[in-house]
């Protein structure tokens, strides 16, 4: 679904990302994990063409990201950054309505409204859809943004740390929603996660990055292992069998 070939981004002579070669399969959740500064978010924003690369190529569903028109890409891939500051005062539903922009250029049809309604309901925001974003809690606002991305109706969804600032319950809820997006709606979700246990529990594929390079890829069972995580995070990590699956312990 997503192919990265020799993707490189240079910041200074000694700080660089890549060259990264990576194949993200269609369907399921792919989690990018790794320590701070490993280049997870950078890689995700490059794939989502929010950031240019110095060398290499990214292909999403057969479209070259650097050469395809941004408007055409917006119907194939949706991307959401961690922090979104809005000058505009919007209600939840108005924000989600913007997700239809790639399809209707701002003239919302009845079909668009239907997709917006379904996206709002999918994220359980029906009761909140008339509320302004600045009246919501962090978790609700995060869900509203994900609803917008969902309404964009793309095969691929890229999310940069969607669990940031969410508490335990909201984090679990968000990951379950992403899981349902892949199983019920057939989307391919790529997500940057900080918590390796969330990656181990909810992801179908895990990509571990370190120092701008892909170190390990595989299923959670292959990557969430003591020696792998210890190497990637440079800190002693044990993996134990918990009541609901394997857990990385590093406290």
């Amino acid at each position, binding site marked *: 679904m997503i192919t990265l070939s020799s993707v490189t981004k240079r910041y200074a002579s000694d700080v660089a990302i890549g060259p990264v070669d990576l194949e993200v399969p269609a369907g399921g959740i792919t989690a990018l994990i790794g320590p701070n500064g490993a280049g997870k978010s950078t890689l995700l924003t490059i794939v989502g063409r929010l950031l240019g690369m110095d060398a290499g190529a990214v292909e999403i569903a057969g479209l070259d990201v650097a050469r395809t028109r941004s408007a055409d890409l917006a119907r194939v891939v949706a991307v959401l950054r961690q922090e979104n500051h809005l*000058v505009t005062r919007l209600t939840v539903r108005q924000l989600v*309505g913007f997700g239809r922009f790639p399809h209707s250029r701002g003239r919302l049809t009845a079909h668009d409204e239907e997709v917006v309604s379904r996206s709002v309901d999918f994220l359980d925001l029906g009761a909140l859809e008339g509320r302004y974003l600045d009246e919501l809690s962090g978790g609700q606002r995060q869900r509203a943004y994900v609803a917008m991305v969902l309404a964009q109706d793309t095969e691929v969804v890229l999310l940069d740390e969607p669990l940031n600032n969410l508490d335990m319950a909201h984090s679990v809820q968000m990951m379950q929603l992403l899981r349902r997006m892949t199983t019920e709606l057939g989307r391919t979700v790529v997500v940057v996660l900080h918590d390796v246990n969330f990656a181990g529990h909810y992801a179908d594929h895990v990509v571990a990055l370190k120092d701008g390079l892909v170190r390990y890829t595989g299923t959670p069972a292959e990557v969430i292992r003591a020696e792998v995580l210890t190497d990637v995070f440079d800190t002693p990590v044990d993996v134990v069998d918990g009541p609901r699956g394997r857990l990385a312990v590093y406290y």
Partner: protein
Amino acid sequence: MAEALRPARPPVGVSGADERRSGALPTTRDRRRYVVLVGALAVAAVLVAAAMVGWDNPMPVGSEGFWRIAELRVTSLVVVVVVAFCQALGTVAFQTVTANRILTPSIMGFEALYRLVQTAAVSVLGVAGLALVQGVGQYVLQVVLMVAFAGLLYGWLFTGRLANLHVMLLVGIVLGGGMGALASYLQRLLSPTEFDLLTARLIGSVANADATYLGVAVPLAAAAGGVLWWRARDLDVLALGRDVAVGLGVDHRRRSLVVLLLVSVLMAVSTSLVGPMTFFGFLTAMIAYQVTGTYGHRQVLPVAWLVGVVVLGGAYVVLKHVFYAAGSVGVLVEVVGGTFFLVHLLRKGRL
């Protein structure tokens, strides 16, 4: 793939199916309110226009002399309409692209450039210089100069390595400050007579405008404003910030550059026509956002224009017929605008 979305669950807490709408004016009530608002503003604008043309006309209504005097005053009315159009649309679009509701495009050095050109003409050529910077050719030249200045600034900063909006704003302000300082210095070297004549040109005034400029100003403003209106939905997306806009498939850099150039055309047309109006655009944009209560540029732009006509025309009528000082409309607008700005900022704590 939309069909793959699960069928909607029964909506929670939503009254009617037709109320589940997105867009700038989602509910029937919003739409009705907007129509009433535009209607009321249009009526107010027509009243102001009628007052500008008809108030204190010494001839009996309907006589030949009445219409002759009215005809002369229509020029001022057209100037007010054009300036309101330029400043209102220019400021709203500029605020959207810069993601900031406090800025006005005036700070980007347009007014300082105007001051410098006018001052330089007087200081080099004396009083005769003022006559030399007047005329359609000179007007066009001044507009071209301002747009070229903006184009260079934006083009350089947007395509270069420093592709950063804040750097661009800062450079614009610094250049504006430099040109303003140079103009002030030149003004100190002027004789009192020259300075007096110059001052009259440097305070925004409807009376500064020459009717012959309108043949150029109106088409230019209409073209630039028309494009902004046509791409107004792109402005809605640009207002969401760079990352979201790019994610939704809007070429943020190119769109921003085009909008900024259109804004510079509007500001150049207005400033060259009547002189600096620092707070006027800000005032109209802020009132327009307050009263429309929506993000939609299709809705905000016309309201801002109407508000501009009412405010500027109203100030003109009040000054001309109450204070007998039609020349200094800019002063009143600045004082009212500045006060309004402070009150608004202190009351709301945010913009």
